[in-house]
């Protein structure tokens, strides 16, 4: 209860109720305080409730105010019971506590809405933009000559913002050179480069032509380097690792691929532009012919050069192009016919020579082919003859030996048989040895093959693992960054929030209360189980008692007809049974009465909290006052 009261008093103080420092629980609230606190709460929640802040002195006014307060609270949805003027004017601690808890609960919803907004980065960006716009719009107009190079100073965070554009430069980046590997221990810098760095290279800020380009150039250089590094990393991670080459080899392979592509494309384009491969061969032919003609005709150099030109004229597929190529060798009009004739004669001659030479060449080629074909045939014949000779020689050798052996035929046949057997045996033993050698070698081969395939799959698996690790690393880095951002945001929010309500104490108390309640629930369950078992015992025992009593009763009654002492025993039994029954009944009644006593005690306590007597006295006093006021009003009316 203390905690609840403290929370209520604290919240009431925070909305502006003027509560004394010594008031610590709701019992110390008097009627004025209750009414003014309730009015403040209602005004806080619902701004257009027109209630006076304090209790008016007149009794009827007080009565009316109490009634309106009760109405307001009930309109807001209070369900704790009937409210009337009496709950505020003649207050009861428990009811007041409930009402204030309800009102205080309704309060904070207005203030906590501000802190619940989403803290996404786009929202924060929007907020920053709108605050900046608002700040700039709020400033008055200032003519240009009063702004320091287009800047205006202000007191908010950056201290300045730009309004004029006369001092702006466009972004223009130039190439800047920076010394590299100057003190590196792995890469050796050539002496000339070191000298260049030391003597000729300008300092970084003096390299651009215009000083305003320094910042853009340096920024572009650093950004380009970072971008290049990141691109290389992604490429290496994706395709470099899978190719299983070292970095240098991978780069060399890529370079050679690109160069090959370039040369192929250039060759293709060159071919397309010059109209096909015939031109190449013709040019070669033309060179050859030029050299031949030079050798043959000695001093006709000019003719040779003109020969070159006329070749082009003859065989150029696109005559305009070739005319354009010749350009300055356009003949003048006077000698055109002569030159034309000469040209035609030359053409004729050259054509004849050409055809001759071509036919000669064809002939020679044919001969050459025939010669090579016949030579091949000869070679084959020679080799086959040699082979035959070899065979015949061997056959001769064999026959000679058998002839030698023929005289001593029988022994020799046996010896030969023995030799044949021996060689057969040797063959068998050799085959066995070979088998012996072969088997382990084959096993070795199989094991090595398995090992290599395993290693490949191992390598594959390790690559996969590396990839997953890398992706996990990236994820973890991203998560860490996100968590850091979140932590920064929450830190800012936490610093912004007010710290006068001690949340940890409340949470601790709440957890303690929850634990207590759990324990109590367990106790209650245990007691319930005990009670149930006791009840069951009682039931079973009473059942047993009845049964035994009826049995003994019958028995003794049967015997009692005959025997006198048995009749006495029977009478004793009946009396015993009655007395025991009475005993049990009185025990039950005492139990019931004890329970009633406990209930009545509780009731007495609650009633004593209601302060009924004090309220009655107050009510009678107020009643007397109202009577007096009514009397005075009646008197006033009568006077008028």
């Amino acid at each position, binding site marked *: 209860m203390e905690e609840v009261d403290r929370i209520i008093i604290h919240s009431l103080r925070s909305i502006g109720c003027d509560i004394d420092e010594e008031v610590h629980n709701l019992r110390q609230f008097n009627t004025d305080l209750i009414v003014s606190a309730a009015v403040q709460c209602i005004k806080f929640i619902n701004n257009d409730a027109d209630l006076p802040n304090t209790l008016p002195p007149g009794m009827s006014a007080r009565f009316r105010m109490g009634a309106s307060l009760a109405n307001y609270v009930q309109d807001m949805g209070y369900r704790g019971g009937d409210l009337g003027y009496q709950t505020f004017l003649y207050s009861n601690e428990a009811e007041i506590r409930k009402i204030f808890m309800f009102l205080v609960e309704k309060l904070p919803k207005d203030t906590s809405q501000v802190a619940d907004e989403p803290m996404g980065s786009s929202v924060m960006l929007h907020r920053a933009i*709108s605050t900046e716009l608002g700040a700039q*719009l709020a400033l008055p107009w200032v003519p240009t000559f009063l702004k320091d190079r287009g800047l205006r100073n202000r007191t908010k965070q950056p201290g300045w913002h730009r309004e004029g554009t*006369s001092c*702006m430069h*466009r*972004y223009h980046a130039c190439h800047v050179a920076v*010394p590299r590997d*100057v003190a590196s221990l792995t890469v050796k810098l050539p002496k000339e480069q070191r000298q260049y760095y030391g003597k000729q290279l300008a300092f970084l800020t003096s390299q651009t032509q215009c000083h305003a380009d320094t910042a853009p150039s340096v920024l572009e250089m650093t950004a380009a*380097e970072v971008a290049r590094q990141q691109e290389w990393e992604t490429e290496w991670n994706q395709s470099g690792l899978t190719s299983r080459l070292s970095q240098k080899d991978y780069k060399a392979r890529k370079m050679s691929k690109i160069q090959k592509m370039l040369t192929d494309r250039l060759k293709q384009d060159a071919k397309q532009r010059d109209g096909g491969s015939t031109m190449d061969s013709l040019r070669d032919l033309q060179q050859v012919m030029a050299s031949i003609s030079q050798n043959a005709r000695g001093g006709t150099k000019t003719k040779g050069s003109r020969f070159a030109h006329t070749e082009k004229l003859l065989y150029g597929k696109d005559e305009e192009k070739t005319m354009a190529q010749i350009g300055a060798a356009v003949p003048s009009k006077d000698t055109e016919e002569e030159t034309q004739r000469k040209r035609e004669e030359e053409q004729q001659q050259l054509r004849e020579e050409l055809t001759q030479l071509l036919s000669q060449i064809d002939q020679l080629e044919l001969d050459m082919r025939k010669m090579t074909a016949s030579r091949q045939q000869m070679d084959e014949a020679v080799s086959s003859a040699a082979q035959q000779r070899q065979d015949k020689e061997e056959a001769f050798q064999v026959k000679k030996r058998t002839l030698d052996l023929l005289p001593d035929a029988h022994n020799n046949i046996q010896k030969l048989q023995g030799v044949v057997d021996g060689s057969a045996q040797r063959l068998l033993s050799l085959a066995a040895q070979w088998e012996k050698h072969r088997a382990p070698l084959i096993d070795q081969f199989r094991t090595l093959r398995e090992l290599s395939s395993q290693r490949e799959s191992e390598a594959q698996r390790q690559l996969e693992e590396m990839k997953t690790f890398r992706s996990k690393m990236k994820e973890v880095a991203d998560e860490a960054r996100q968590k850091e951002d979140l932590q920064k945001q929450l830190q800012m929010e936490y610093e912004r929030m007010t710290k006068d309500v001690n949340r940890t104490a409340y949470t601790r108390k709440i957890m303690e209360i929850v634990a207590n309640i759990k324990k109590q629930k367990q106790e209650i369950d245990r007691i319930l189980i005990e009670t149930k078992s006791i009840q069951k015992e009682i039931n079973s025992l009473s059942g047993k008692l009845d049964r035994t009593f009826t049995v003994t009763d019958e028995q003794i009654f049967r015997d009692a007809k005959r025997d006198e002492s048995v009749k006495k025993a029977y009478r004793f039994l009946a009396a015993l049974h009655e007395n025991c029954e009475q005993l049990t009944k009185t025990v039950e009644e005492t139990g019931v009465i004890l329970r009633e006593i406990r209930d009545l005690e509780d009731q007495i306590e609650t009633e004593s909290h209601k302060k009924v007597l004090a309220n009655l006295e107050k009510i009678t006093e107020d009643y007397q006052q109202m009577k007096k006021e009514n009397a005075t009003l009646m008197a006033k009316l009568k006077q008028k």
Partner: protein
Amino acid sequence: MELGASVVENLCLAGDTAHIPDKCFDQLARKACRGVLSETDRNAIADDPSFKAVDKAVLKAAYSGVVALVLEAVKHDADANGISHFLEECKFTPDRIQSFNNIFLTQKPSMQILLGSVGSCRPHIVDVDWRLDYYIKSNHMERINEAVYLISLKTEVPGQTELQEVQFSCSLEQLQDLVGKLKDATKCLEKQAQS
């Protein structure tokens, strides 16, 4: 804030006490900031006598590293924590980090202004002069009797010190149209500033 490998290497050079002694480091940082900011001090580091003992190639490398760091830090609006963190990775001693931060943070606003002045923009209207003329008659018509507004917008053009003018004439309706559009634009801005 990320910097490329060669810049980090040059920065490590700058932070190395073997190559750049402590006394020279402050001077290096100051000259780097001044070299970026002012045109007259572009090459001031070349003639500075306190760097006589340092090998020129090493000095140039360290200077370029510091200049690149300074510009990147201004671009990212880095505070003392971020810079200290980065410089620790480049193996700077805490004293050097402290002195660098002191020098850099005093120059940071002017460098932010410098970076903020990089950009291209259209002529910026700063003032307007207007004049109302009355068009009485012309050689084609005897009586015209119309009001004509002559508006002259004064603009700031990047690179020019004088204000340039954009002059035009318009009728009353056209001027009302223009003013209506300007009012719409201001309302739009104010709505953005409120939300």
